[in-house]
């Protein structure tokens, strides 16, 4: 009896000491941070070249040929993909299959360099847990990318730590706060001469409630992409939904082989799933760069 009580005592004191230190730390640790001070600016309208009047007698073939020539000329002016340096940052998605497959595709196109850094369980919402702005400064000190590919959101369906207070998920200002976090983060790249930031959108998940969070995050990303010209949103939602719009864990290729697209947790991706996202990224890159 005495030994038993002593053993329980040892454990409870251990727990008490740990709790005391923990609560002491908690009360002091929430770091302060200031938002990117500039107000949201709607990007200036794109320059639209004046078109010369089209001759009425022109044939369809010549229009097609002309369009092709213009397109070819436009493509010729685009920067070559093989002359670019890429940075891939994000959470476990970038550390895992999605990041690996994007990096592999870029290496196949013989780009100058790819640096990939993924930190699991992190995102834009919890800078008190992991400060991505600080980490980005560190990365940009040693590495100057031309193009940045980002994927965050899987861990962001929660309260945001901003302006020294929590903004809850059901707060009407949550979306705007998240968008400002994204803006603040991506602006760091633009300030460092990055041409474009590509942000991979979140995909549907096995769990309905979780998918709703991802939709909310995607909406904030889409909203920002409409305001900032060089911030490009890449949608992946439809790639992993079936014809009824439901979550798709597997797929069958046109040749008939079956592929598992998603990891066990119904959130992450397998390599086959990562390849689909890499395809989407490459398609978007083709709009701005010469392959």
């Amino acid at each position, binding site marked *: 009896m005495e030994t038993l009580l*002593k*053993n329980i*005592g040892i454990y409870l004191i251990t727990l008490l000491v740990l709790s005391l230190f923990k609560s002491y730390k908690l009360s002091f640790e929430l770091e302060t941070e200031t938002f990117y001070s500039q107000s949201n600016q709607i990007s200036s309208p794109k320059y639209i070249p004046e078109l010369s009047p089209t001759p009425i007698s022109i044939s369809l073939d010549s229009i097609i040929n002309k369009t092709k020539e213009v397109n070819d000329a436009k493509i010729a002016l685009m920067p070559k993909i093989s002359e670019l340096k890429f940075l891939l940052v994000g959470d476990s998605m970038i550390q895992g299959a999605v990041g690996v497959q994007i990096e592999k595709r870029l290496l196949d196109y013989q780009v100058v360099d790819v640096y990939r850094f*993924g930190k699991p369980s992190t995102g834009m919402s919890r800078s008190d847990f992991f400060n991505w702005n600080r980490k980005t400064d560190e990365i940009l000190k040693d590495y100057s990318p031309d193009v940045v590919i980002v994927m965050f959101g899987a861990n962001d369906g929660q309260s945001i730590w901003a302006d020294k207070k929590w903004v809850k998920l059901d707060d009407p200002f949550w979306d705007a706060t998240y968008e400002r976090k994204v803006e603040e983060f991506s602006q760091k790249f633009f300030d460092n001469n990055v041409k474009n930031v590509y942000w991979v959108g979140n995909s549907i998940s096995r769990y309905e409630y979780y998918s709703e969070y991802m939709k909310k995050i995607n909406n904030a990303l889409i909203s920002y992409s409409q305001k900032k010209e060089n911030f490009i949103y890449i949608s992946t939602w439809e790639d992993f939904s079936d014809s009824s719009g439901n979550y798709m*864990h*597997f797929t069958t290729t046109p040749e008939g082989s079956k592929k598992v697209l998603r990891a066990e947790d119904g959130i992450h991706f397998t390599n086959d799933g990562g390849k689909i996202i890499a395809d989407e990224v490459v398609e978007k890159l083709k709009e701005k760069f010469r392959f």
Partner: protein
Amino acid sequence: MHFTTYEFIAFFAVILIFNSLGALLNTGFRKISLIVFSYYFYYLFNFEFILFLLAISIITFVFSTILTNRLFTFRKIFLSLGILSILSVLVALKYFDFIITSLSTYFPQILQSITLVDIITPIGISYISFKSISLIIDTYRGTVSSVKLVDVFLYLSFFPQLLAGPIERYNGLISQISLTNLSNIDFSKYAFRFCWGVFKKLIIVSALFSNDLMSIFQIPEKYSAIDLLLGIYLFSAYIFIDFSGYTDISNGLSGMLGIKCGENFNKPYSASSISEFWKKWHISLSNWIRDYVYIPLGGNRVGKFRNYLNLIIAMTLAGIWHGANLNFLIWGFLHGLLIVLSRISLFGNRFKFVGVFITFNLISLLWIFFNTESLDVAFEYFKGLINFNSDYILLSYANIALLIIAIIIHNYEDQVISIVSIFINRFRFFYQGIFLGIILWLVFELAPETTPFFIYYQF
């Protein structure tokens, strides 16, 4: 809720109180409270997991009860049925997708009509299944003479061993839980062992688990031979510290509850042959494979060729046990092949140091299959080992220091645990608690924001 969280440490205090009350008042109460806490612990990962655990416990209980009746005529048939039932559950939940997706590449027409089902594989499924099979076979053999429903439920769900072993035997675990005298436990030693496991996981494993180490096994073609070589050594350290850290936590927790569990590691990288390595690495799995696969196949009581074949079959099964992936199969097969080769004594055992050096390097090289996603990536890794360009990313003072720390832990951790335990025991219980609390706090304080999952959770 993971073992290395503050929440778990608080949760365990409640378990400890109930366990002590059970030992004082009633063994039945002790067992039932442990079952309830174990199921709750498993439920926190996913509700569906407990349905799997319930199903497998009932199947195991039914078959083992039938098999304890030694006068029953169809015992062999029921033994086969019991094993098949457990294996069916294991295959359906863990291997089905792998089998169908692999075969569909070669036979798309035949498999067109088969629909894959989106089921989540329960954590620790391979451990639970192997424990279940061992109990069924032990009742058939007569090693276990009687089973109780409560005991079977507790045996399969016992939370310290639920997620990644050790694969304890029924008699060893249940006989200890049935004891009521907990006064002989060296509580501080087990509490420190738990802290030691948390330290290994949160500090050392987190430091070893870098983006570069991950990347090197994902896209090896990007790296130089020096990096790739260092990568396999770092991974050798990483997997040992990660898995042995889990065992420290598991055995520490069991010990604090008054249950002494078997060890899973005994300085495995000091083995001078592959067969010796398997006597020192994941010992509970090696023993399981020996007792329930290798010996029933004939073991070494058969001709030489058949014996070699048995070894290769047993090790290939041990490989595929790890996961539904061709890499694991090849990994197990090559281990089997190397054991056979060492028996033919291609590399002799005269100079122990040479044996240790060769064995460690072979094991490290084979981790490439274990830690890459596909055979293509594994072969790229091997190809890269002769790519002598001058870019070194992993060759840093930090990584060299980590390797040295890993060697010290590997060789001297038993002494560290003993010395610290003796030191703690010199103080009154109040100061012991303060000491352990400060250790845990320091570990949590020094740990980075995120730590990787235990590698063996996926099995």
